[in-house]
Every structure is written in C-alpha cells, then in structure tokens.
C-alpha cells in the first residue's frame, strides 16, 4: 500500500481508479480521462496534488542559500509572493528536480518539489542548508489542490470570504499570497489559467466538495499528464533526470548564468555545455500517421541520427498523437518514429502544442 493524501477516501468515493505514483496511491482518472482533460481546457477542473512536497525555508541567509542551490536566480524575486520555476542541479549539471520557489517575504521562501523525488530532495536541501544556517521545514500538514481552466480562478475565489475575493482575482500570473490559512498562487501545470491552493489538510475535503458543487470537475493524474504535455511542460523522470542537463531538456530559459559572479551548484558543468554547444535538444513531435507516440520509442532523423521519445501521448485537444523527444541538436523538420517495428512519419515542432485552450500546431 502506498501513501495516502488527505483526499484519498474522497477519491475512492468518487469512483477514481487509483494507481501508484511515486509511492502514493493517486487517482489516475474518475469517469473519463478525456472528458476531464476537456473540462480543464473549456471550464475548470481540480486535481489533488497533495503528494507534492512543500518545504519552507527560513533564516537570514535563505536568499543567498537558494541562489547557490538553484540554477535559476531567486534574486529575480523582488516582491513577496513572486514565484520562480527552477531546476535544482547536481555538480555535473544533471537535474535533481524541477521546482517552484516562492518568495514569502522577509527572509522566508517556500519550495514545492515533486512527490517522487521528495526524500532525495530533502536530503540534498538539508545538506546544503546547513552551511547557510537555513532552517528546512517540510509542511506535511498541508494539502494542495490545483484548480485549472478558464473558469478556475473565479470558481476558486468564491470559496473565499467576500472581502478576499478581489485580492485573489487580482493576483498576477506566477504570484501567490496568503489568504487566512490558505496560500493561493496563480500557477499550474496545464497551460491554462488557474490557481494552486495550499491549505490545511483538514480543510481539503470540504474545499474539493465546494469546488465540485460549483461545477469544477474532479480530475486525475491522467488528464494532468495530457494537459501538461500539450502545454509543452516537462515531467521530471521522463523528460529530464540526473543524467540530463537543462540545455538538452528545453530548460535553458530557466538557467540564469548572469550575473557571472553567482556561484551555484552545477554552474561549471553548464558553462562547459554552453561553450561547446549542447549536443542534444528536446523537441516536440506531432505524429502525422495514425498511432500513439510513447516514451522510449526510437526517433530516426533524415541524416540517420537517432533520438528517443521522452513523453508521448494522444492529445485530446489536437486529436492526434504528440510527444517530447530528445534528438541530436540541429534544424530538423521531419522524423520517423519506430512504433512496433513500423516507421511512422512525425513533424518536429516547438512546444507548446496547446496554450489557453488554443491549438498552436496544426
């Protein structure tokens, strides 16, 4: 038996199919994964992401610590509430995890890291935090709901006291703020507008039911995966891991090499990569033929070079198969993918495939 979130019994009562995800028994779908996907693109859906790990950091040198720990620069976080997406690297530039860092104000920061990497992340963070006198506190008593879709913010805001609704709706993208016992951030993993809500575990079931009553559809991790892939967002463990660096994972935009004086873990390795140029790139693929792209399928380039699909699925919005694939760097338009011994035609594109309900590729 895996670990359970505070919403486990509710998921079961709503008929969810539960699967193991990073050691947690999580809902993969309720009635139909495709309908859940469309609910988020067209209206609003709610996901239980309480399995993710919330870590609060405090101490006078916390900002300095995160500037050393992360490949992106929390120096960019000037105002309380601002969030930053970053990779946490090892010394060879490999990705230990990807995470969101929130500046809470003063010298306080919050990290949200992946469920499957929780233990190694905490170990790594604690080990380096010691040198900076930073206190590391896992917030296991909090649950987290992702409410996503064009109607998500308005529906979520109606759960708040009336005086607080406008303040929640005024949150800029990639910013969060406390609302009594809740922390609400305008972030997500679907390519749609929405909120991620961190709240006491004891309040999670009621919040979920209140959202359902407003027409927000219960969604599982299956829909979360098709939504994030359409949005061109990487999944840790599939699209990057400790043996791949950000520049071959389409995450170069998250690496802050300026200012040059900022020392961070993995910097020397990344500087060697940028000097030589990354040998591989992560690109999007759209399957032209019928079939479904899946991770680990082989990709063959016109010049004979080969790569591999890191994430693939059927895109419910585009009604065709899409994927992310790691291939040799260089311009390429058409590739072949080996699906059960047949070579099928695919087109290389720059993700995202879908954003804010709109297809971006044909």
């Amino acid at each position, binding site marked *: 038996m895996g670990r359970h979130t505070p919403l486990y019994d509710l998921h079961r009562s709503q008929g969810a199919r539960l699967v193991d995800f990073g050691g947690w028994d999580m809902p993969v779908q309720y009635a139909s*994964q495709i309908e859940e996907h469309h609910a988020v693109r067209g209206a609003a859906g709610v996901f239980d992401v309480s399995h993710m790990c919330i870590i609060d950091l405090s101490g006078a040198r916390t900002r300095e610590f995160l500037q050393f720990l992360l490949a992106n620069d929390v120096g960019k976080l000037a105002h309380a509430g601002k969030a930053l997406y970053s990779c946490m690297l090892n010394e060879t530039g490999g990705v230990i995890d990807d995470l969101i860092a929130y500046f809470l104000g003063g010298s306080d920061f919050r990290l949200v890291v992946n469920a499957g990497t929780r233990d190694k992340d905490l170990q790594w963070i604690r080990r380096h935090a010691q040198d900076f006198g930073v206190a590391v506190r896992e917030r296991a008593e909090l649950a987290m709901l992702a409410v996503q879709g064009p109607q998500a913010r308005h529906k979520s805001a109606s759960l708040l006291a009336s005086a607080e609704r406008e303040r929640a709706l005024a949150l800029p993208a990639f910013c969060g703020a406390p609302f009594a016992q809740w922390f609400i951030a305008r972030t997500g993993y679907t390519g749609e507008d929405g909120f991620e809500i961190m709240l006491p575990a004891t309040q999670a079931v009621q919040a979920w039911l209140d959202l359902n009553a407003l027409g927000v559809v219960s969604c599982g991790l299956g829909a979360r995966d098709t939504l994030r892939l359409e949005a061109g967002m990487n999944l840790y463990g599939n699209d990057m891991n400790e043996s791949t660096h950000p520049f071959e994972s389409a995450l170069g935009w998250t690496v802050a090499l300026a200012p040059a004086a900022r020392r961070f873990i993995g910097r020397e390795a990344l500087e060697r990569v940028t000097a030589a140029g990354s040998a591989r790139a992560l690109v999007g693929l759209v399957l032209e033929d019928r079939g479904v792209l899946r991770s680990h399928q082989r990709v063959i380039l016109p010049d004979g070079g080969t790569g591999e699909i890191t994430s693939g699925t059927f895109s419910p919005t585009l009604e065709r198969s899409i994927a992310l694939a790691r291939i040799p760097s260089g311009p390429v338009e058409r590739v072949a993918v080996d699906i059960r011994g047949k070579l099928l035609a695919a087109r290389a594109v720059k993700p995202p495939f879908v954003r804010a309900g709109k297809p971006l590729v044909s």
Partner: protein
Amino acid sequence: MSQVPADLQYTKSHEWVRKLDDGTVEIGITDHAQHALGDLVFAEVPDKGRVLAAGEACAVVESVKAASDVYCPVAGEVTAANPELARTPELINQDAFGRGWLLRLKPAGGAAGALLSATEYEALLRAEGS
C-alpha cells in the same frame, strides 16, 4: 460488475469470442477490459489473410495512458478487421461486445483450447476483485 453476455466465450486475458452463423468467429475485448484501459484512442488490427496462432498477439489497443496487446483466443485466418475502428476507436468503450469488435477469423479447426464460459469468466472477474 461489468457486463458478461451469456452467449459468448472468454479468455483469461479478457478477450471474447462469438461464433457466427457462417462458421467464422468474431473477437473483441471485454467490457471489463475496456473499462480498465480507459478512453481508447487507437486500435491496430491485423490484415485480412493473416494466419494467427492461439495466444498470439493479434491486435493492439491504445488508451490515452498505454498500449495493450490483444491475444488471439483461437487459431485461424483473419477474414475481416473492423474498419470503423480506424476513425472511431471509442466504439470499443461504447459497445465492447458489439460495434467495438476487433477482428473475425476462420478457425483453423481442432479443439478451441481453454476458452471460458460466461459463468467461468464472471468467476475470474470476481477473483480479480472487480
């Protein structure tokens, strides 16, 4: 509990077999199987004329989540594959025992091996906890 029509035969790997009047058999996956797989988005069916052994992987059904092999319940030669599945693989979800059929074949003769009756298949589903 999933539907289990009494007039069909079944396999432990959740295929069904229907004997047709012309001596051929029709093959598909069960309601339990389609439900376990979730929304189906692609089906790869064998070409007409292909000769299949019992237990051979004869088709692939893909849901959003994963690809799954379908194993041929009886040996024989493929006489038809469901042409509607190319455009509407969701027929398997909607009507697993009817319009969602996968293939028809002419049995190669001999004993049909260890097919299950509806009662036996229901017992299997109960044992699997569904």
